[in-house]
């Protein structure tokens, strides 16, 4: 049974009934229909903080799931050639719809053991340096476009990360990604956590799954800074405008990729294929642009962001 989120509690008896019926080999059509109906009702009325929880659901498809499903002959490349190899970032090259394409993303684990190994998807400076090294390699040597998959609570905030230059690593990535000569499509598939996400998030097109988030700070972090109380995360989530719908209205996101009611963790295959389809569409449009035009447009996209009075 999928782990139910706090706002899905009304589904618990239905799922139990379903389990019971399956055990007794009875027809489950009716109950499944009822679950779908309830899900539809719940998912048509989500608060931003509910969406935050969906984005963090442990069963939500992660970068590795997308790579396994959408890429063939994927070859993972390791290491930053300076200090180490950060498992929180996965980078490599393979065939995407029959074309050589690079992919870079945050790696989250499915359980605690994996998550400890991947540091919950929070990358160290080595991870960002690896990402950039591979991006250069893919675009300049293999002349291939790049898909980046964003799913991180944020950059690793440890002492070690600071000492090895987390700020410098991210700054250098932002600067250099503007000059990568092949198309980049970034897709937020779960949590887009601030600089940690932006560090591999400079792109020509930014797509977002419907129940993913992208924010300058986690709602909990925001609450602990502005409210001085981390339990005010719900209010913070409302105020931050971090859902795909909000960001589309703010012209930050180019396209929202739909998710069925129940979220990607209940419809994994369907959502993964939808992401693949939209990524291909975006790459198709971008591949028509000349290199000069591509880089110009990428820069324009970011230089125009901001609202102020004048």
């Amino acid at each position, binding site marked *: 049974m999928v782990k139910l989120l706090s706002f899905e509690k009304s589904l618990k008896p239905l799922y139990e009934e379903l389990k019971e019926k399956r055990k007794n080999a009875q027809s489950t059509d009716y109950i499944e229909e009822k679950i779908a109906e309830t899900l539809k009702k719940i998912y048509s009325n989500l608060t931003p903080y509910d969406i935050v929880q969906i984005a963090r659901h442990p069963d939500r498809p992660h970068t590795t799931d997308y790579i396994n499903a959408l890429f063939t002959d994927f070859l993972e490349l390791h290491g930053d050639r300076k200090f180490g190899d950060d498992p929180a970032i996965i980078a490599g090259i393979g065939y995407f719809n029959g074309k050589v394409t690079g992919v870079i993303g945050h790696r989250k684990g499915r359980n605690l053991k994996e998550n400890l190994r991947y540091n919950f998807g929070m990358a160290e400076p080595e991870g960002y340096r690896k990402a950039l090294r591979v991006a250069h390699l893919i675009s300049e040597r293999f002349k291939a476009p790049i898909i980046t998959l964003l799913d991180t609570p944020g950059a690793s905030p440890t002492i070690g990360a600071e000492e090895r230059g987390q700020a410098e690593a991210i700054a250098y990535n932002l600067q250099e990604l503007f000059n990568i000569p092949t198309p980049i499509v970034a897709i937020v598939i779960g949590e887009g956590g*601030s*600089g940690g996400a932006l560090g591999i998030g400079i792109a020509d097109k930014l797509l977002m799954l419907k129940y993913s988030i992208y924010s300058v700070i986690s709602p909990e972090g925001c609450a602990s800074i502005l409210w001085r109380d981390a339990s005010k995360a719900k209010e913070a989530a409302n105020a931050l405008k971090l859902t795909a719908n909000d*960001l589309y209205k703010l012209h930050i996101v180019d396209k929202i990729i739909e998710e069925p009611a129940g979220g990607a963790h209940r419809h994994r295959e369907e959502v993964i294929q939808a992401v693949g389809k939209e990524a291909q569409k975006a790459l198709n449009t971008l591949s028509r642009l000349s290199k000069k035009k591509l880089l110009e447009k990428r820069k324009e996209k970011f*230089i125009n962001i901001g609202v102020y*009075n004048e």
Partner: protein
Amino acid sequence: MNIFKRKKKIIKVPIVTEEERAKPVRCKSCGRLISYAELKKNLKVCPYCGYHFRMTAGERINLIADEDTFSEIDTEVKAVDMLNFKDVVTYKNRIKQAKERTGLDSAAVTGKAKIGGFDAAIGTFAFEFIGGSLGSATGEKITRLIEYAKKRELPLVIVFSSGGERIQEGIYSLMQVAKIIYAIDSFKESGGLFISILTNPTYCGTATIAMAGNVVIAEKGASISISGPRLAKQVAKKNILPKLEQAESLIENGLLDIVVDRHLLKSTIVRLLKYYNRRRI
């Protein structure tokens, strides 16, 4: 040149009221009492232990720019509340209070000045304006300053004193980091010199921007961190030792060029500008 932009001398702002001025200040590091006049005379550095107090944007410009040479640009760019953000107080209110208290319209003061006789584009974050946080208006001003420097082939000096992105502007504030980094990159590409100066504190996105400097200078004891202490505490569930993110330890890790005492900050910048300007003659 520049006749369409309003020129304005920097406003001297009474961040410290007259009443407070009369009272001695307790040093946050050694705990000794210092008279405000004495502290001011010593460039807001504790005369006993060398602790660097925060400076306002006005004080900072006066410290670095030659007397009466600073002319401000882009004063018309003002912070707005585009998301209708509300935490314990509304963002509108925060802006209003900050404006009244500081006389500034955003957390950046930018302009042109002479430094040791050399023309330079200079900008500083104003910590007194909502923690010097980086919002759209601040980001736009810094970006324009960089473009201003590029167009006129001036060396660029930016002083960081900021808690990071302006959370109240949500994703817009994060994107300012990308925007400014891009502007810096194209400035550096054109052959420009960007001297970045990190003061206490430089956190989160502004730390990222600061690290893009050609020469990265930090003031003694400056706290520099990509996550910021409060966030790191909330995420890592433990205190990151304050000592470890200070300039003195970061330079050992190879992340900074120079750590200077505030008294030597200007002369260090001037030396760099001297070496830089030499190449044109």
